[in-house]
């Protein structure tokens, strides 16, 4: 054996793990090699010193700390076991319960008018029908709701002409006071524009009938919001008046237009109307005073109101 081979076996030699033959070979080598003899002696000493190192002690309360840790872990394991064991039974049940609660919560949220955004704006067909039925008799219960209501069927059926609508929109200044501003593009028509009923009349003298409308409005506590002649001959008036007076207003208009239409056909009537027009143009008349009064009237504070779009078409 050479020195390298002997040194590789020092640990086994010192731990008495070598066969007798190998031990004898090492002894033979050590007799003739002082270097290896010194090294093995030093290694023996090192092992002795390592073995004499003092025991490292734990703290006095070591056992107590161990037992407390065990108790704490036991509580956590018991809790886990209570919640999730047996896993095949409890976990599916808990997931199902969680899903049911989530679905119920979502359902209640959607159905609740206070919470659901769609609930605020969506009116059922039955509710719409009810509103229409009650429109002539009494103000609707939810007038305030209607101010906030977005798209409704009545609004959707209003006959619109793009230019007329644009022109009217531009001159509706006083409307904004009582309405919420439209929020987004998609909600503009839905947000706060109340339903508007369109009424059409055919008249010989369109201008004259404008004044008549103002007179009637003034008497009934309504007001003229705007007027427009988008198509040249047709006069479009946007009026507002109390709900309770809507029926009276429409009836008065019908009566006025029918009687005036018949009267205007006769030669005497045509002449009289033209004179009336001249007179009315020259002097401040009751019609103009009525117009002024109608514009100033503000029935909004007293009771719910309705807006009507009157289209006075020239009669050929």
């Amino acid at each position, binding site marked *: 054996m050479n020195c390298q081979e002997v040194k*590789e076996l*020092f*640990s*086994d030699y010192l*731990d008495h*793990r070598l066969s007798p033959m190998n031990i004898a070979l090492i002894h033979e080598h050590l007799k003739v090699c002082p270097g290896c003899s*010194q090294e093995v002696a*030093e*290694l023996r*000493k*090192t*092992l002795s*010193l*390592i*073995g004499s*190192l*003092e*025991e*490292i*002690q*734990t*703290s006095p309360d*070591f*056992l107590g*700390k*161990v*037992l407390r*840790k*065990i108790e704490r*872990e036991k509580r956590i394991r018991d809790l886990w076991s209570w919640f999730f064991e047996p896993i095949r039974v409890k976990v599916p049940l808990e997931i199902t319960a969680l899903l049911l609660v989530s679905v119920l919560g979502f359902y209640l949220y959607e159905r609740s008018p206070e919470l659901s955004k769609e609930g605020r704006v969506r009116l059922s067909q039955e509710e719409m029908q009810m509103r229409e039925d009650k429109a002539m008799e009494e103000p609707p219960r939810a007038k305030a709701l209607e101010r906030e209501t977005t798209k409704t069927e009545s609004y959707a059926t209003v006959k619109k002409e793009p230019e007329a609508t644009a022109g009217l929109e531009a001159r509706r200044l006083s409307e904004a006071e009582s309405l919420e501003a439209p929020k987004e593009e998609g909600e503009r028509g839905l947000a706060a524009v109340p339903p508007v009923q369109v009424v059409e009349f055919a008249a010989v003298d369109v201008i004259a009938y404008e004044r008549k409308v103002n007179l009637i409005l003034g008497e009934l506590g309504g007001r003229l919001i705007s007027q427009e002649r988008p198509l040249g001959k047709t006069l479009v008036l946007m009026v507002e008046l109390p709900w309770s007076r809507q029926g009276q207003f429409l009836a008065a208009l019908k009566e006025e237009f029918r009687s005036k239409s018949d009267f205007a056909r006769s030669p005497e009537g045509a002449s009289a109307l033209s004179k009336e027009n001249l007179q009315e143009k020259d002097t401040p008349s009751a019609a103009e005073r009525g117009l002024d009064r109608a514009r100033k009237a503000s029935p909004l504070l007293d009771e719910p109101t309705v807006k009507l779009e009157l289209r006075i078409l020239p009669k050929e």
Partner: protein
Amino acid sequence: MLQGLDPDGDLIQKIQQGEQLAFNQLVLKYRHRVMGVAARMLQDPIEAEDLAQDVFVKVYHSLKGFKGEALFSTWLYRITANSCLNHRKSRTRERQAKKALDESEPILFDDTSDPHVALEEKELKVCLEKAIQALPQEQRIVLILRDIEGLSYEGIADSLGVELGTVRSRLHRARLGVQASIKKAFSPDGQRSEIQ
């Protein structure tokens, strides 16, 4: 089954039957040994004690499954060694521990027992602890289990889950490493070349 030959066989049986006092006795018997391994591996006495406590908590929960195929002490050292090797400490604490190791006496070594112990011997032991702590982890654990705790080569191989040849080579390198460190510490200028 070695439970009949295991000196701790009776205690184990009692613990498995639910005797709390038997477990307490087991903890009191082996706490210092587990602490010794943990302290020399982790180089931090606080973390070492915490780890030692965790070892016994693991023993408590795992004892039901202990079938006596190895000695209890071997099984215990296996849990301890694996816990030490898997332990991850914060880098800050590691740097602090290393700094303390380099600059002063080892944190673990506290020789306040006998004032008459020769200064040289005290210095030697301090140097020895430092030398052990400077070893790589794989060599250090083998040296501790063999030369401090007295486990057999086979017991160490079983505890660490390595081959016998691996234990031999790591142990040999660890011993030579410690020897070289001591030689260097006591004869830096080459004046003293042997350990007395």
